[in-house]
């Protein structure tokens, strides 16, 4: 990974993409399903909690000259997160395609693209991500428009506040996105505190995407929405515009591309953390080490149940956030003094 510094404007699309790129894909193995009302409240509460955590941990903290512990833990979190997305993407691809490529070939192709992207550098990745975010936005709008004639307001489940259900939904939907670690890892031109405000705006944007998806699913599919493992993909298959009935192929292309971009960004960030840990290593050696580490992470993630996998990513990311909070604040206070 080339350690060329980026300004905040360039880092923003990378962060946004790493947050929302897999919002359209539901996690396989997640058996518990909730109504749109429960999802909305759970996502709002989780987002509020996350925003609170981000402000609490990182206001007046900086990632400049952060220690080896931070780079070690955040690198591990980013690498594991990237491995999980690789596996989720491969699983989603196999779920959607009638005659898929063998698992190993699919992963090999994905890794090839991801490593090439790492070699391109942050600047190219940021520009490509900017384009991709527009494609994702178009896909979301198209999903709504294509299903407009199927919306039934009576499909929405009545709001019955049950604290137990809501609490369970909050636990199931809670994630500490590893994308939050990006601002601490990415090489920055501007020196100063972490852009906490931008981070919270990103989290709010993610909540909006999740809530609108849940509402659209229930408006179209009613209680049946909870039976589907990939609700958004079902909506993509259901919707049509005029004589165009197979819009799911377009959505699929954009969503897979977005997931690929997300795991690439996380992988590149992990490479950046490795560079910060071992700056003396040659580029070739760094690539080799990264490949071996990613391979181990993929094997480890594949051995885990999806819920355990998600819990591991969340725990590692939260731990990294705590480390940065302690180190970053200390550095900031010293700097201010």
């Amino acid at each position: 990974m080339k350690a060329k510094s980026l300004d905040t404007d360039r880092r923003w699309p990378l962060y946004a993409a790493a947050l929302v790129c897999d919002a359209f894909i539901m996690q396989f193995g997640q058996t518990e399903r909730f109504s749109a009302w429960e999802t909305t409240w759970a996502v709002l509460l989780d987002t509020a909690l996350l925003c609170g955590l981000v402000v609490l941990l990182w206001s007046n903290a900086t990632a400049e000259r952060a220690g080896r512990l931070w780079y070690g833990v955040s690198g591990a979190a980013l690498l594991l997160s990237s491995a999980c997305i690789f596996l989720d993407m491969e699983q989603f691809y196999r779920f959607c395609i009638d005659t898929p490529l063998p698992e190993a070939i699919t992963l090999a192709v994905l890794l090839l693209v991801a490593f090439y992207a790492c070699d391109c550098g942050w600047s190219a990745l940021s520009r490509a991500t900017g384009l991709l975010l527009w494609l994702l936005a178009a896909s979301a709008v198209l999903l709504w428009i294509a299903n407009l004639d199927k919306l039934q307001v009576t499909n929405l489940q009545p709001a019955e506040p049950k604290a137990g259900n809501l609490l369970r939904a909050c636990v199931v939907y809670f994630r500490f996105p590893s994308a939050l670690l990006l601002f601490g890892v990415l090489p920055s031109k501007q020196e100063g505190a972490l852009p906490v405000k931008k981070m919270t705006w990103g989290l709010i944007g993610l909540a909006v995407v999740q809530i609108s998806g849940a509402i659209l699913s229930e408006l179209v599919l009613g209680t049946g929405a909870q039976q589907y493992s990939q609700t958004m993909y079902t909506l993509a298959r259901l919707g049509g515009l005029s004589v165009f009935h197979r819009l799911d192929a377009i959505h699929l292309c954009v969503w897979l591309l977005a997931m690929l971009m997300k795991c690439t960004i996380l992988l590149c960030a992990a490479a950046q953390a490795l560079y910060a840990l071992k700056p003396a290593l040659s580029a070739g050696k760094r690539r080799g080490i990264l490949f071996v580490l990613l391979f181990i992470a993929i094997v480890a993630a594949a051995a885990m149940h999806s819920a355990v996998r998600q819990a591991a990513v969340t725990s590692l990311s939260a731990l990294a956030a705590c480390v940065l909070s302690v180190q970053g604040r200390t550095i900031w206070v010293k700097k201010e003094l």
Partner: protein
Amino acid sequence: MGKKRAVILLAQCMILSLAFCGCSTFVPLSERAIVKGIYLDESNGMVQSALVVYTCAPSANTAEARSEARIYTGEGATIEQALKAAEKKQNKKPFYAQNRLLLLGPHTFDSASDYLLYFGAEEVSRANLSVFLTDTTREEFSQLEEKVSVVVEESERLMQKSKGKGSKVCGVHEIRYDENEHFYGYLPILQIHANEFTGVEELMLYDSGTPLCTLRDLAMQLTLLLSGKAQSLETTQSIEKTQTTLRTQQLFLQREIDDNGMLFIQLCGKTESLTQNGRALQGDSARQALQRYNALIDEAAQQLIHLTTQRGNDVFACGWWAEGALKEVRIQSRIRMA
């Protein structure tokens, strides 16, 4: 430089994603049996199936290239086995992604819930698969090979026409089940005969997975209207021993709920035409005929409510409007002269 790399990166992602389209383990079109319709019935405890398959014969001359519809039949203890048995009657790889038609034969009416649950599963069919009941038996259906393409095309036309207004089609995603996984609502009955295709003229009303009655003409149109699948009425009734035809403009449903849990639904709108034996009615005679029509609609709607909501079979989601406090439903037609 950065821009160039970004474009190369995006292009490379897209090119490589082409490899994911199944190009490496592809099945040529000529080896695909494109399924355009599934027929299922029961006989002696066995499931009988028929697949309407379009075969494509490759030809260098595009003008000569054509596809023809064939029917392959099979039988099995389960739906899956019956479908597999029909698939094995030909040697091509079946392709179900184009299929949007599911026909359930006369012996499946009582057990329709099982079939709907099977096809409602995400991995079995697309959510926009349309379900029809039919009185045609498997034997009769399998003899329709020459005309089955008309059945498929007309059914697809019904699905196209159904977009938004006047839909007589029921997709598997619209099927609702009670807590015992029994289907409630209605299913359209498709009339298929050797000589003609009359489309959908009846609906079968279901309560807890059991067929309750068939709904025709005004009752059918009111069902579609109250369930939000139609927005106007077009019906011919005998009023004072004369055939009178009413065609309305767009109708609106106004719902009000009072403190006693009574949901009051008003059908509001204007006539587009009101004719008696083909002659347009005007003045007082039109007003009187419309008054009779409003009374007829009130009566038919009340009967419908008696068959559905009052039995706890909430086909029209009245409970939703009443926010769970529903005691009674009253429907009043207030169609006025244009």
